[in-house]
């Protein structure tokens, strides 16, 4: 167990400019945390008992129709949100479940004071970035603004006027600069966009010859990278138990992003040798266990074999990569990442008087929503043999707990 808040994974100084202002106070140790944060923490721990249990998942996977699913869900915490829904479809189930999560999150946010308030806001910035990119991408394919707004994640909503004006900008470097100056500069994701513009202008953005779709992905990956770095710098300043736990969670998040960026770039223009160092390397976050040695190796990776060789040097990712490399179709690399994330987020609940429980709760609830959508899709499409591929949460029968018993 590493000592206090200092840990090997961020012993290197986080020196890039931080966009979120440093916290005005510490969360407090064992004897002082409860002054400001006991109530929200106790709330989120109460919400922990609302996760679906093994018996619930068992009943759900035995259902034949979506009405049975609805009947079984009416005995869980989802009873009230589902009450006034006439028929259940996977998309409407997802919407209802996400709205429930948003209501709970907003309850927590309204009871939070600094520095917990900024911490919770930082969790929502990720969804704001997703919404901005959704609107930008949607404008490229010419979709209706109202459809796009309906698809936006509720946790990351801006003002209506702001969101409606985003698709009106053109997707050129000039257009992005205009977008930032007029619209995004007042939003919380403004600083991340400013850093992106600065970085792309430093690298001669206008001379790049990329397809528009790749451009959008690059923008999104860059914004998420800046968000992870900003969040990590903030929790590092909070110190104590929060820095230790959230540092780990964000480090594996950064590494997951780096591996996914590399994996998804194979077969796209981003994987060309000229682009690898200039563009792909810029997308790797400057935090995480893979930084800096691993990411500099990843920057030169050309195909999956080389990627596997690089990841073998890191034991925690070697195991996940082997699941992907085995390629039997039973489990993909995304499933392996989800399992690892659920395991770590469950462990975040083990410590009291720190902020990581809030982040872990949001992520575990998202996984539960993914599980519900997966189960209902399997039932809808009558593919019952695939139905058990969800990841149970807070379950004694989780895959990582099974292997230890041997």
């Amino acid at each position, binding site marked *: 167990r590493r000592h206090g808040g200092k840990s090997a994974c961020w012993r290197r100084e986080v020196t890039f400019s931080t966009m979120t202002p440093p916290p005005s106070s510490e969360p407090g140790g*064992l*004897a002082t945390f*409860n*002054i400001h944060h*006991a*109530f*929200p*923490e*106790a*709330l989120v*721990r*109460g*919400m*922990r*008992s*609302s996760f679906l249990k093994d018996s619930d998942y068992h009943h759900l996977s035995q259902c034949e129709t979506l009405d049975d699913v609805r009947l079984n869900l009416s005995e869980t915490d989802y009873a009230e949100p589902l009450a006034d829904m006439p028929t259940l479809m996977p998309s409407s189930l997802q919407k209802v479940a996400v709205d429930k999560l948003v209501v709970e999150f907003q309850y927590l946010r309204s009871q939070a004071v600094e520095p917990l308030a900024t911490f919770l806001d930082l969790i929502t910035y990720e969804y704001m970035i997703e919404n901005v990119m959704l609107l930008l991408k949607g404008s490229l394919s010419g979709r209706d603004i109202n459809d796009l707004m309906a698809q936006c994640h509720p946790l990351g909503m801006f003002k209506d006027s702001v969101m409606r004006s985003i698709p009106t900008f053109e997707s050129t470097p000039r257009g992005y600069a205009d977008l930032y100056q007029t619209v995004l500069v007042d939003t919380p994701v403004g600083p991340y966009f400013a850093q992106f513009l600065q970085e792309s202008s430093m690298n001669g953005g206008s001379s790049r010859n990329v397809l528009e779709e790749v451009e959008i992905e690059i923008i999104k990956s860059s914004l998420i990278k800046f968000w992870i770095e900003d969040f990590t710098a903030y929790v590092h300043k909070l110190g104590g138990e929060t820095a230790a736990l959230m540092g780990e969670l964000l480090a594996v998040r950064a590494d997951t992003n780096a591996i996914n960026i590399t994996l998804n770039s194979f077969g796209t223009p981003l994987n060309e040798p000229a682009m690898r160092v200039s563009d792909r390397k810029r997308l790797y976050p400057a935090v995480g266990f893979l930084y800096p040695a691993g990411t500099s190796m990843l920057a030169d990776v050309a195909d999956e074999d080389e990627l596997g060789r690089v990841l073998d040097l890191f034991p925690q990712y070697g195991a996940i990569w082997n699941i992907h490399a085995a390629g039997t179709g039973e489990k993909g690399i995304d499933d392996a990442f989800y399992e690892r994330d659920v395991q770590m987020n469950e462990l975040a609940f083990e410590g*009291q008087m720190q902020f990581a429980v809030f982040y872990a709760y949001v992520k575990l609830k998202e996984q539960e929503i993914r599980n519900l959508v997966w189960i209902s899709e399997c039932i809808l499409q009558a593919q019952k043999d695939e139905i058990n591929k969800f990841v149970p949460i807070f379950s004694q029968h989780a895959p990582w707990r099974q292997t230890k018993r041997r």
Partner: protein
Amino acid sequence: MSSSNTCTSEFCNAGWSEVLTHMSPYGFANFGVAFALGLSVVGAAWGIWLTGSSLVGASVKAPRIRSKNLISVIFCEATAIYGVIMAIILTNKVKAPDENTYYLDEDWDWSGYYYAGYGMFSAGLSVGLTNIASGISVGIAGSSCALADAQDASLFVKILIVEIFASALGIFGIIVGIIQSNACTFPIAALN
């Protein structure tokens, strides 16, 4: 520091020993009362807000824990009661002399006089400081107890045992404090 600068008047202290003995034992004793009460209440209050804030939040989703977990608050309150007991005992021992004279008599019980002052001061510190530690300890354990009870009702009694051990620290303080202050009696008349 030459000896010519040292004050030789009878009103000056001739050294540190005189500084201490020139402080009235009544002052020491009453400070002991203040520490016993004040520090105990600090510890109790700290423990109560530590556990009460978690209890309030945890009972939002699990209302059944409300009444049982007030035991944690009662344990914290007990540390304040120890402080009050000690303060009352000590205050009852502080007695003014029978005769209202300017100087005390030649054959006053000086050793008993000073013994009473120092003894009550340290008894007050014993109780006060142990109750701060005990109060905080019970508070943190009580906070975890409320959160655990909200998840699994069988955990309540087990974590309560942790709190019992934590509140035993306050009992140690008051036991030692009573033993210390037992022999302390302020003389009220000259010996003879």
